[in-house]
């Protein structure tokens, strides 16, 4: 099942929860199975599965989080006006933490483009948004990721400076 692991990992990052990601991925395959007649032969099967994943995750989020879902808030957007330098050293754990703090729509776009390496056109299809929206979400998402990483680097720097190192 060549796409399963990628779908699962994307789902984990989108939901921040492994157990729910497992359920979501299972649901994706069940949905794909049921709606196979809507798959156009010759088109990108992987993109089709991701489209179902996005739909399933949105549905899942609505069901689980209810009112806790924060629509991509304007403050977050407005905050992302400065692009800090990328730290020289990036730990795996930090980058995984950082991406989870990026609001869902931006995070999803970044995961699809920079991890799954879908084209902008495929992402527009998967997310069902215009390509311009994909580009702005990517730009914002990458910016926010950089900010979080820079914040983390700064906080580690401060703690070291504070004499906590051993």
């Amino acid at each position, binding site marked *: *099942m*060549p*796409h*399963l*692991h*990628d779908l*699962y*990992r*994307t789902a*984990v*990052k989108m939901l921040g929860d*492994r157990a729910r990601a*497992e359920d979501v*991925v*299972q649901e994706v*395959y*069940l949905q*794909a*199975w*049921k709606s*196979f*007649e809507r*798959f156009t*032969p*010759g088109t990108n*099967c*992987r993109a089709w*599965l991701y489209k179902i994943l996005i739909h399933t995750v949105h549905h899942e989020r609505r069901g689980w989080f209810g009112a806790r879902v924060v629509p991509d808030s304007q403050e977050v957007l407005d905050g*992302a*006006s*400065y*692009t800090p*330098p*990328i730290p020289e050293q*990036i730990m*795996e754990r930090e*980058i*995984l933490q950082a*991406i989870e703090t990026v609001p869902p729509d931006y995070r999803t776009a*970044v*995961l699809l*483009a*920079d*991890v799954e*390496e879908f*084209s*902008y056109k495929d992402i527009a299809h998967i997310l069902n948004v215009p390509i311009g929206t994909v*580009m702005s979400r*990517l*730009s*914002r998402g*990458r*910016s926010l*990721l*950089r900010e979080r*990483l820079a914040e983390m680097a700064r906080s580690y720097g401060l703690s070291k400076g504070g004499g906590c190192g051993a």
Partner: protein
Amino acid sequence: MSDGHFSDPACEAVLRQLDAYLSHELTDEVRAEIERHLPGCSQCADELEARGRLRAHLKAAVRAQPVPEGLESKVRNAVRGTPQAQHARWRAGWYAIAAAALIVICLALVNLWRLSRTDSEEAILRKTTGRMSKVLNVGLRDHLECAVRRDPKAPAAPAAEMADELGPDFAALLPVVESKLPPGFRVVSGHRCWAGRRQYVHFIVMSGNKVLSLILTRKQPGEWFDSGIYQTGVDRYQVVGFESHDDLAFVISDLDAQQNLQVAALLVPAVRDYLAAHQG
């Protein structure tokens, strides 16, 4: 995004495009412009390197996350359902084929495509391994020995001759096959033949210069498909295998994988119904 630490307008223009550059989303002209700028601008070159590094880190970190061991079988089981459900789904005709085709396309493609065209039949057959592939080879052998060797310019056999060669058990399958084929495909031969010491019922179908076989043969011990229909690509041939109670059936061609599967999806329900009705 704003990049306040780059003040040169040329740099600003390049920086706006750097991510699209990394994603191969730029036109050749814009790409060339950026590539002209980078060697003379260490700031932009460093920024490109840093963005590329960030992406590589992110990709590696996400992909390093462990996947639960049982996930694949959990999903497979969910999709396949219980044996009873599976049986019911098979009876649902196209729906079942579509589902199985999905599994074939998306989950279980074994791609040994694009190997040398000059390989001998035995070399082609050796390219598959494992039990499932051996079962798929049962049909592939006959296709290679019978359909591929056939003179492609030979005229189609008259229907009466085909019916005669197919014998009373399978003569009535000929119109069924003909009715299911997509436009442009026609049966040029229907006969019984022997290959590798087993007997086959063989329909040879042509579309332009493409040759497709529908092949049936009695199951032998150890020959079965685990769940419905299987597909593999061996050399330049695409093989779809499925089964009825007593028989193995194959759709094999030099069409591409999708096309072969589409033709198979049209043929499988009718062939299964036919075999079920003529069992024993």
